[in-house]
Every structure is written in C-alpha cells, then in structure tokens.
C-alpha cells in the first residue's frame, strides 16, 4: 500500500487505517474452519444457557405463560363457586301461559334459565332456583328482595289486550345485573309461546316457526375456500402471536449478539480470539450459538404455552362441568403448517438481523453504547412489524405484498399473510429463497465490518466508510 504522509487529510488516513486492519485479518485462516465454528457455537450456547439471568428470565416467563393460560379457567371456576344460587320467585297471576300451569311454568323457567348459562350441568347446583306461586299480595316477596333472601321477583300479569306483562323486582345494581337479560330472554320466548298458543298453534308448530334457517357462508376470495371458519380464526390468532413472538425474539437475541460482541471487545479477549480464529468464524459461531440458545428458549415457551392452553378444556370440564366458553383452539393440520413456517421465518429473520447486530456490536467502543448503536436496526425491524399489524385488515393489498418480499420485513409480514390465508405456496417459497440469499449477502457484509471493528477502539466510522470497508477485498 502506498504511503501517504504528505499532509494526509482526516478522511484519507481513516481509509488508510481501515485498509490495513481489514486486510490483515483477511489472512488465509480457514484452518479448521468448521471445528473452530463448532467450538465457538458450543461455548456461546453453554455460556448463554448456564447464565443465571437467562435461567431466571426463562423460568419467570414460563410461569407467566402458565398462569396466563390458567387465568380464564380460574376466574370461571371462582365465579362458579362463589356465585350462589339466585332465588327467583315467579308470581303468576295469569292462570295458564301457553297452556302451562304453575308447575309446568316452574319447570319451563328452570330449564330455560339454567340451560342458557350452564348447559348440561350435573356436578354443581344450578344457577337459578325457581319458585312459582299465585298471589295478589306481593309485598312479602318485595321485602324478601329488599333483605336479599330472594334475588329476583318476577310478577306476571295480563294486560287488557291479553298479552303477558312482566314486572321485574330486584335489589341489584341494574348495570352489573346479568340476571335481567337472562330473565328477559326467557320472558320474550314465553310471551311468543303464549301468543302462538292463543292463535291456536300447537307447541310443535311454534317450534317449526322459529327454527333456524339454513345459512351457509361461502367465501369466494382467493385461497380462503378450503378453510373452515375455525381454521381461519386459528390462523389469525397464530399469526398475531407469531408476529409478536418473532419481533420480540429476533430483537432480544439480536441485541444479545451485539452485546456479546461488545463484551468480548470490551474485555479484550478479542485480542486473543482473533489470534486463534478468524473474525468470520467468531461471528458465525456467536450467531449460531446464541441463536440455538434462543431457539431452545422459544421452543420451551411455545410448547408450554400450547400444552397449557390445551389442558384448559379438560380442567374446566372437570372443575365446572362447562365447555361452552372455553377457547376452542384446535391444532389442526393448517395450524401446524403455520407453526412450522413460524419456526422457519424466525430462524431466517434471526440470522439476517443477527449478522447486522453483530456488525453493530463490533463497532461500539463500550458495552453501554450497544443500545444506541442498534437503534437503526430496531427501526428497520419495526416497519415490518407495523405493516403486519395494519396489513392484517387488508392482506391482499399490493403494498402489503410488496413489503412482504423485502427480506427485512418478510418474516413478520409473510407470517401475517399466511395466517390470514392470503399467501400462496410459491410466494412462501420465493420469500424464503430471497431471505436465504440476503442472509449470505448480509453475512459477507457484516463479516467485513466485524473484521474491521473488533480491534478498533477509536472513532466510529460513518455509514459511507462502512460501505467502503464492505466493498474492499
């Protein structure tokens, strides 16, 4: 290299320095390439998973996941235990309604009220107890409502037009009283039955009159036609969860990579390491090592999370004897495909960003500068994150499609598109190929910056200089 000592300008000298450093570490160092990378992967992985902070945070998150998935069950259980029966007194001053006398009416209320809320409940007592009487003096019952021994007093009268008129007495706050709507629902049914019987219809005829019509939804939009509604719902849920998971984990482990590099640089062990292994080996080993530790952690989260959700239904059935309000997340074939693609996009996304994070980590002087240095990468990643969240309402829009082909944004955006069913298999394949190519390009770029950065403790180079470094040799 020609020496330029005649009043060298700042720029020239930095370039000079750059050339000499990066050139020096480019020596033919592929001695034991794979062996060294393997050793570094092993060290990084072990170092990560034996760290107390890693173990504690993993344990805490696992506990939170389990608690989170149990919360709905626990809430349902507590409310079912603590909610004692609501005593309903029905004062029937109408004679027979829809051909039902007091006894039949009591049965009807019992079946309707308890049936609508707890289904085929067998193990615990029903939510409502019904007592039907006929009396003109309701003041006694009103007193009972006042002192709380009776929950609801329902008085049935006939209007001059012979319609049944319902009067509902309660002591509860009308805003939070869920009994009103339940009772009102039964009342309107009863009223219809009563009118129908007065019109001379048999209960059977009335039943036919109000039978649900056949109603089929056919979606003729692309690629939705083969999916059942529950598949589509599961797709949305998995897509949302997957996008958040990918965003958090890629960012988290990317920062771990950058911090790890800065740490080695700060502790000066880098000076020994570059004598034993090439920068490329060091970078690759670090990324894969930390990546596998991250993947192990993520896998634990996902497996524990899904198993915890899956055992909710049996637990709920055993505790409350109630299935109807549980989350129906069926792990069907298409959900499993989505999970696999989540894994693929996580790995690709991590590799792509980790190379850049490693390069950024190599450029900082001290560890506490890492967070600032990786800021641009965070913003870059955020774009894809937001596109996936807003694009979910319009997944077939051209701009969403375009964004999903840009490798930095592919993982989150494609996952969203696959989740809502707007991506075809060849698009999935194509984006994966694009990502793999980009990973190689970024790895080469990053390895050069890494090579330059790891032993530099001086001024941070500008973006323009970075490109120069990357273009050299």
């Amino acid at each position, binding site marked *: *290299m020609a*020496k330029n*000592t005649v009043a*060298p300008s*700042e720029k020239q*000298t*930095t370039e*000079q*320095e750059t050339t*000499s*450093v990066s*050139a*020096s*570490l480019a*020596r*033919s*160092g592929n*001695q*034991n390439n794979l062996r*060294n990378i393997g*050793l*570094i992967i092993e*060290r990084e992985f*072990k*170092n990560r998973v034996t760290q107390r902070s890693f173990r504690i945070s993993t344990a805490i998150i696992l506990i939170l996941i389990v608690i989170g998935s149990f919360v709905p069950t626990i809430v349902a259980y507590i409310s079912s235990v603590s909610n004692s029966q609501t005593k309903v007194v029905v004062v029937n001053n109408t004679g027979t309604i829809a051909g039902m006398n007091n006894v039949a009416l009591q049965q009807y209320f019992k079946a309707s009220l308890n049936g609508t809320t707890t289904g085929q409940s067998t193990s615990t007592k029903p939510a409502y107890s019904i007592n039907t009487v006929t009396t003109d003096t309701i003041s006694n019952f009103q007193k009972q409502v006042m002192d709380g021994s009776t929950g609801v007093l329902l008085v049935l009268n006939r209007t001059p037009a012979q319609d049944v008129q319902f009067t509902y007495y309660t002591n509860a706050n009308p805003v939070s009283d869920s009994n009103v709507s339940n009772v009102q629902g039964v009342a309107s049914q009863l009223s219809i039955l009563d009118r129908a019987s007065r019109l001379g219809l048999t209960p059977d005829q009335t039943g036919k009159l109000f039978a649900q019509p056949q109603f089929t939804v056919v979606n003729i939009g692309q690629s939705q036609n083969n999916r059942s509604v529950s598949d589509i719902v599961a797709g949305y849920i998995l897509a949302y969860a997957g996008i958040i998971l990918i965003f958090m984990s890629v960012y988290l482990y990317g920062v771990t990579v950058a911090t790890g590099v800065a740490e*080695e640089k700060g*502790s*000066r*062990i*880098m*000076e*020994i*390491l*570059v*004598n*034993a*292994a090439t920068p490329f080996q060091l970078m690759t080993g670090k990324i894969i090592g930390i990546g596998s530790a991250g993947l192990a952690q993520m896998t634990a989260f996902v497996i524990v999370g899904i198993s915890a959700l899956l055992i909710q239904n049996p637990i709920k059935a055993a505790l409350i004897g109630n299935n109807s309000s549980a989350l129906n997340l069926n792990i069907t074939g298409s959900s499993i495909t989505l999970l696999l693609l989540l894994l693929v996009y996580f790995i690709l996304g991590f590799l792509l960003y980790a190379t850049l994070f490693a390069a950024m980590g190599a450029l900082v002087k001290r560890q506490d500068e890492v967070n600032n240095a990786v800021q641009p990468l965070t913003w870059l990643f955020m774009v894809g994150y937001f596109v996936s969240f807003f694009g979910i309402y319009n997944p077939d829009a051209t701009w969403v499609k375009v964004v999903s082909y840009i490798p930095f944004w592919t993982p989150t955006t494609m996952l969203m598109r696959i989740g809502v069913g707007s991506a075809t298999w060849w698009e999935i394949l194509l984006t994966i190929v694009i990502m793999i190519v980009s990973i190689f390009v970024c790895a080469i770029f990053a390895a050069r910056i890494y090579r330059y950065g790891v*032993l530099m403790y*001086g001024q941070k180079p500008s973006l323009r200089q970075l490109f120069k470094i990357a273009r050299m040799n």
Partner: protein
Amino acid sequence: MGLKVEHIDKSFGQLHVIKDLSMEVKEGSIFGFLGANGAGKTTTMRMILDILRPDCGSITWNGKDMRDIPRHNLGYLPEERGLYPKVEVQEQLLFLARLNGLSKTAALAQLDEWLERFEIPQYRNRKVEELSKGNQQKIQFLATILHDPLILIMDEPFSGLDPVNANLLKDALLEMHRRGKTMIFSTHQLEQVEELCEDVVIIDKGQTIIAGSVREVKRQQGRNVARLKLDNDSEARWLDALEGVQVTKRRQDYIEMHIQSNLNPNLIVEEALCHGAIISRFELGEPSLTDIFIERVGKTALQDASPVIATQAGGMK
C-alpha cells in the same frame, strides 16, 4: 534466523506511531522489548502477531512471512486482561486451547500440569473475575502457553504480580526457554530483563534507540557508575567541577556518579586525596538497564513532561 522485523512503519491517522523500526529475535532466545509508555511496544507486538499490518516493511519468521505462520504457533499475552470475566478458569482455558488446535484431553493434561506448577489448582472452577489481579495474570499466562506455541509474545507479563508470583512466572519463562520457545516480552521492571534476556531493544517514539545483547548495551553506553564515600566530607562539592563526572545521587551513605568511559577512575581518587578527604569506600560498577533507560528515554520523555519518567529521572532524594 528467528524473528526478523525489518524497517516497519505504521501510522494511525496523522499519528506516526512506528518509524522505521527493525529488530531481530534469535530463535530460542528471550528478548526484552523496552520503551516508555506510548513508545509503540503494543503496536509493534500486534504487528508481529498480524493483528495489525505495517504500512511498509516486513516481519518474517525463519525467512517466511509472518502471515503464513499458522496461528497456533503464536501465543499472545495482551497488556490488558483478555479473558472472559464471568467464565470459570478451566472452561475458558480449555476453550482457548482447543480453539488453538489442541484436543480436549491434551488441553486438560496441559492445564493440570500448569495449574499445579503455578500453585493454583484450587482456582480451577472459579470465575476469573473472582480472582486477585496476580492470579488473573497467571491465568492469562496459561492462556498464552497452553497450546504449546513456538513463539510467545507477552505484553507486560509481570504487571500486577507480587515478588513471589513474579518468581513463579520467571521460572515458567525459564522453563519455556528450556523447551526452546522464542519469547518476546515488554516490561517496566528492568531487573527482570537483566536477569532473563540475552538481547534487548529499547524504543522511543516508535524508533529504536538502543539494541543488542544486554552486556553489549551496557558496555556501549560508554560510561560507568562510581560510588564514593568520604568520612570527613559527605557533600564533596568539588566533584561537580570535575570534567567527565556527573553526580547522580548524594545520599547519606554514599555519592553516586556517572563517569565517562574515557576517564580514568583513578583521577577521582587523586582529586579526593588532594582535597584531604578520607576515603572509606570507592567502587566502580556497570550501569543498570534502569539507568540506561532513564538516561536515554528519560531525556526525551522529559520534554513531553511525562510525570512518571520525569520524577524517576530527577529522583535525587
């Protein structure tokens, strides 16, 4: 043959750090690399290791370009601590040795031997950050030699060691010498150099100022030290007027002076007798490397007003 550094130059930006530096380290010898802080020692070592590359000039080992020497033949002890602070001693030493090509069993055998030799087998499973500075330095040395390199390049290996541990390290260096290793080390403790090294180079501001075998360097300095004690005249002010004599210390027990090599020491005795002095002690000695270092480097360092060197050079207490 051995290691040859020829006419290397290195600049960082406008800073011209190394200027036309040359030195030769014989194969199998111990070589002292001296210089004040910031003289360019670490930069030169990094260039020998091919971590940095000189702007021009060449560095060869037995005639072969240093870049073509497999890395595991080199052992480097950096000046600052270069270890994972939170990793256990055994784990990181094994990792580094294996990264340098050793098998796990071979690395373990080496580790056992050296931990025993350094009297620290109990620290095997301790984290480095929990150890004292001296013990960390020992671990750092093990990281340098465990993979059995041919050439050891050590940046201040004695820093932070107490006299007992310094002796342990000295013995270890001599053991490596017996095994035929070539060693280059820098230090500020010049007694270690006199004790261990055959050859020495002193650099200042990136330039060689003194080079050669320790004995030659002392002789070449062209002056000797004389110590004089007079029973009836502890000051002996007349010495100051004497040509070729420079008093360096006036102490309670004796006066120390540098005399030029062409000056006959008898002259001092004659002069003393002329002044009616009663001589109780007169001795001649070689200058120590410390004296030479302070004389040659101290002068230039003084202009920089480097406080450490300045007090040493002017230390006439």
